[in-house]
């Protein structure tokens, strides 16, 4: 891989909780315009790894580099300020505010008032949230709340997007639309998607990183991973 193309890299990244090595000496890299899925059984360390990338956890050891800038231990807002869009596993939305206000807050962070308003309208259109534009997000269905959060990520026009279980709790139809949206985001941004849903991963992924016991077990296409004996044993074996 060409070094200049790497947008996100971890070197020797470790996160220990007491004696538990949730993430252990992980070397990882993501190149420009890539769409990478992180998979692994429960407790494999993918969410902890994700939180180290977003600044929600301060790693015990190692480094996180975004476009060759060392961001290890920075606050989430400093990571966001680099142009990184983040969606967490538990939906984090502004419950009492309307869909429109939620997305406007994100757009306004980067643009002047008039541009923010058009960008908000465009994002609502793009995510087909027009019907619930003026509804408080707290009253929306789960799938729609997930989209409002995705809308906030999109409205910031990020060049690097980190999503933790974007399709969790969605119906099949909603999952298909989310996959479409993710491919669309991928036209202008590199993505890391942490996911459980294998069907969903097959819809979007080219390259998959398999986590196991705090480390990377293998990195390959979904087909190759499905065919691999080790991978079946740690993960797919439970389901097949």
């Amino acid at each position, binding site marked *: 891989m060409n070094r200049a193309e790497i947008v996100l890299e971890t070197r020797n990244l470790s996160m220990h909780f007491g004696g538990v090595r949730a993430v252990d000496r992980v070397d990882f890299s993501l190149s420009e315009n890539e769409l990478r899925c992180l998979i692994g059984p429960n407790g494999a360390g993918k969410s902890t790894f994700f939180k180290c990338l977003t600044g929600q956890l301060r790693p015990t050891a190692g480094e996180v580099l975004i476009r060759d800038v060392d961001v290890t231990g920075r606050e989430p807002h400093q990571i966001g300020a680099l142009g990184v869009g983040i969606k967490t596993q538990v939906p984090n*939305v502004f419950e009492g505010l309307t869909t429109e206000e939620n997305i406007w807050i994100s757009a306004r962070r980067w643009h002047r008032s008039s541009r923010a308003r058009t960008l908000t309208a465009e994002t609502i259109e793009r995510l087909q949230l027009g019907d619930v534009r003026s509804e408080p997000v707290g009253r929306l269905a789960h799938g729609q709340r997930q989209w409002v959060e995705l809308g906030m990520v999109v409205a910031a026009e990020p060049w690097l997007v980190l999503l933790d279980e974007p399709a969790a709790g969605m119906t099949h139809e909603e999952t298909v639309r989310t996959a479409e949206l993710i491919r669309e985001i991928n036209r202008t941004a590199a993505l890391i998607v942490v996911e459980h849903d294998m069907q969903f991963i097959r819809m979007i992924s080219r390259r998959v990183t398999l986590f196991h016991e705090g480390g990377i077990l293998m990195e390959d296409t979904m087909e190759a991973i499905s065919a691999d004996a080790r991978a079946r044993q740690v993960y797919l074996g439970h389901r097949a």
Partner: protein
Amino acid sequence: MRLSRDFRGTLIVAFCGLAFTLVAPEVLEFFTIITLSQVIGLAILALSLALVWGFGGILCFGQTAFFGLGAYAYAVTATNIGGSTGAILMAILVAAAFAAILGYFIFYGRVSDVYLAIITLTVALILYSLTRRTSGPEYKIGNALLGGFNGTAAPPLNLPGDAGTVLFPEDTFYVAMIVLILAYVFCCWLVRTHFGRVCIAIRENETRAELLAYDIRLYKLGIFTIGAALAGLGGVFFCVGVSRVTPDVFSLSQAAVAIIWVIVGGRGTLIGPILATFALHYLTASLGSQALLNANLVLGIVLIVFVLLVPKGVVPSIIDLADIRRQRRVARSRERRLRLRRTRNGSESAGVAE
């Protein structure tokens, strides 16, 4: 559309306030007008807490610390320089600077909500016992004796630049009301700005605001400091109304009633806590003239009733009711239209059948 509705509401409230300002001295007794200046000071305190707690989501139990500091700063400065204009600025400045320093440690130290309430209350109580111990001639700042639990005299307001022309109580009332109205309009404007909306967003979800690249510590510190500056301004009118400032401004009961005003008036509105201050002050004042019921007991009962029965507070509940009625009206007119169309279609089809 919503913006204009909010703006109209602000204007209507401001005009009502102005009308009250003009009419009150004509109809109310002179003594009531003097008391009102002091209540207006308390109303500005309630407004500041409505901003910090209701919109910023910061439960500052010791908002009175800034209120009292403002009052003391005004009294001491006015006594020393012999004019009120600079002293008012000093009051705002002292309250804001103190809040900025305290807030820096609270917000950048990531102190959580409950501890913030306790810390701010403790600060108010520390100021209470400190000021109570300042009796004796050695405790003075310039010419101003702090006076322990008797407090210190607060000079009246004067015309700007002319310390000799002291304002009459009625004029003080006018000034206080106009300041209250301006402070209210300022707060209404502030919560509609980008800064204000981000503060509301932080109240709703801190993590999300952070992930959207907003430095929440800075925003919280900002609204906390602005709130403290307002509280300091409220302290000025309070002590001018009483002509004194005593350590009681920092007392536990004073801190508690400020919270009660906001709960009764309604968190998330600015006018609610202001109205609640006037109403509850009137209530306790009229109870004070009889011996049957203890005023604090009644205040406690009011609080319990509100927390249990009207948890959102008066103003938000009224707004909710109005919304429900409007929705019902819209639904009813839609139904009527549908029925009309159906009967018309019915008669047409009847005509065809013939």
